[in-house]
């Protein structure tokens, strides 16, 4: 155990803090996604150009060639500086890095990491939610092309995206997860229709994607045929961490915003409020330490495994605790910010659904980590 910065880490932190001091946007983050998206993207592009994004990606693909600990420092300092939210897409470069050909990595990773091209994750389907392996979208080989037909749903940021990492069944005879492959689908391809879906809080965050005889070159398969399941599991394991998604700093910002709310309301908060504030702060501290532990495990280069379900459950618990706190603080119908916080609260309910529901995470922990007998499915 040594939570001190190494000299190299300390230099990195100092440079980062100096940069943040000069470069944080002065206008507040818009609450509505349609306005928030360009704002977040612009900040992320600026971060990237100054070398603060994709820290642990290799330099050849546009990363910084640093390690997981620098990612942890970035997360911490963005939180302390109340920086804008990051695009929660950091995990989508991982499969390209691990499974992409040299050609694919060179073509797709630099613009992805720079947020010049936006990606989305086309896994879920109307009939295949938790039971992802039952997905029905088909990919059929015709000459040197793949022809895709099917229907994806809940695809976050599809309406803003240029490419979709899409799972489709290539071998209908193989059992369930063995017949699935992964594809890189440009959303501008003829036959692709994206229809936004409005979230409970009014944001058009996700969308349906309809695929009608969508033809893509054979070179657009990621990995080999039937690698789809492995690739998908890698992606969700990364997605379940609070650093990769940029959620740790976001939650830190939420907590300081809520503390500011308390201060505007009273100079002598009652004990119940102090307790709730303390609990949220403690939960965040737990998340911060847990992320450090998780990232330290990754220094050796090992990708996250089923233990990422703990990270995901923790991230959800922290978010939902912060939101419960916001509700208890903003009971007065005239309180400023009430509507925005209620929207955030609604969004917080999705935390225990996306990336594998809280029940699915518990199944994973019980069966994969504790070795209890498997249930059907």
């Amino acid at each position, binding site marked *: 155990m040594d*939570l001190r910065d190494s000299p190299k880490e300390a230099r990195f932190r100092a440079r980062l803090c100096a940069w943040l001091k000069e470069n944080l946007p002065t206008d507040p983050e818009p609450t509505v996604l349609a306005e928030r998206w360009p704002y977040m993207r612009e900040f992320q592009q600026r971060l990237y150009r100054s070398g603060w994004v994709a820290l642990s990606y290799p330099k050849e693909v546009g990363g910084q060639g640093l390690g997981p600990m620098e990612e942890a420092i970035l997360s911490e300092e963005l939180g302390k500086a109340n920086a804008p939210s990051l695009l929660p897409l950091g995990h989508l470069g991982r499969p390209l890095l691990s499974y992409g050909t040299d050609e694919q990595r060179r073509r797709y990773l630099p613009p992805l990491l720079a947020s010049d091209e936006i990606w989305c994750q086309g896994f879920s389907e109307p009939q295949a939610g938790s039971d992802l392996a039952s997905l029905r979208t088909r990919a059929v080989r015709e000459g040197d092309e793949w022809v895709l037909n099917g229907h994806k749903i809940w695809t976050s940021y599809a309406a803003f995206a240029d490419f979709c990492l899409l799972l489709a069944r290539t071998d209908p005879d193989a059992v369930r997860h063995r017949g699935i492959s992964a594809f890189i689908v440009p959303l501008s391809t003829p036959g692709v229709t994206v229809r936004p879906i409005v979230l409970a809080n009014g944001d058009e965050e996700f969308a349906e994607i309809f695929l009608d005889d969508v033809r893509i070159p054979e070179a657009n398969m990621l990995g080999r045929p039937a690698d789809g399941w492995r690739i998908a599991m890698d992606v969700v394991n990364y997605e379940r961490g609070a650093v990769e998604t940029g959620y740790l700093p976001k939650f830190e910002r939420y907590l300081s915003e809520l503390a500011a709310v308390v201060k505007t309301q009273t100079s002598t908060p009652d004990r119940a409020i102090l307790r709730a504030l*303390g609990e949220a702060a*403690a939960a965040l*501290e737990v998340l911060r330490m847990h992320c450090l532990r998780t990232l330290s*495990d990754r220094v050796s280069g090992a990708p996250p495994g089923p233990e990422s379900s703990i990270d995901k459950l923790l991230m959800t618990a922290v978010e939902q605790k912060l939101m419960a706190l916001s509700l208890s603080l903003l009971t007065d119908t005239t309180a400023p910010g009430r509507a925005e916080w209620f929207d955030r609260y609604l969004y917080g309910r999705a935390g225990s659904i996306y990336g594998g529901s809280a029940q699915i995470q518990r199944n994973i922990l019980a069966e994969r980590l504790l070795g209890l007998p498997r249930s059907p499915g």
Partner: protein
Amino acid sequence: MHFALSEDQRILQQTIDEVSAQLFADSPVGNARADGGALRAKLWSKLVELDLVGLLVPEHQGGAGGSLTDACVVAEALGRHIAPVPYVGTAIAAAALLRFAGGPGESLAALCRGEAYSVLLGGQLEDPVATATVAFDWVDGAQGVALSPDGLATVHDLVDVDPITDVDPLHRLCRVRPVPAGAASSEGARRARAAAWTGAAAFLTGLADGALRQALDYARQREQYDRPIGSFQAVKHLCADMLFDVETCRSITYGASWAAEHAPIDEAERVASAAKCYTGAAAIRVCETGIQVLGGIGVTQEHDAHLRLRSAHLHHAAFGNLDAPLMLLAGRVLDKA
């Protein structure tokens, strides 16, 4: 930055697990309720022999010169076995107070040799404000350590002793004739309190981990409806929740074990207080859930699950239960906003 136990710390963990498992195979921890202190004394002298009681004390003061993380590794392993020894009270809380708040050197050396020192707390096991009335982790003949009103760790002979075993018979409290005490204001005293919070958190983490292991063993063996109960999703999710709690307790506890010793004092207190309040609530939850998985046997005196739950409540209550750390955390967040 690196967050992981060292190879030596893993071996230490294993050693305590083996020592405890051996000892308690011959004589279950529950026996310690009525054996006149025999089991406690046996394990304590083993810990002294292994030089683990003086882990927090530098070598030139008679200790083993270990770290708080080392001591937490020991405390977690002892908690796992509900070991009936005053490790948190003596080897962590009292030792930290003596060491960080200017206590007498001869007491520190005596503590390392295995002599009994309890920490003195208020009636609700909070940090005493004006007088201390309860000795935490008390054993027969123990002396008490408290901060004096002028802020120095001071050793007291305890008189009018009246043991309290209602909640946790394995880790005794004792009402004592009140002694004058002061609040932790110096940096040393605050660091000692952070160490006490963290030590309790480590013991709580161990208690929870033991409950999880017991529940898992049982869930694999016990059959109902011709299947192991561990194949029912309702039971699996209870076990998954326990695992979640145990692992997150570990993260915050070991983070705090480093911060409480090495970080600037404000950060040390912040992380340690998060550890204390989080693990207190989590360990109680996990021990309760463990009993649920055990079914009827879990609520009897024939099983030690109730001793584990009792111990979780005691350590949750110690050093200001949830409230002291939560108020500190809330204060920090408000100061920053």
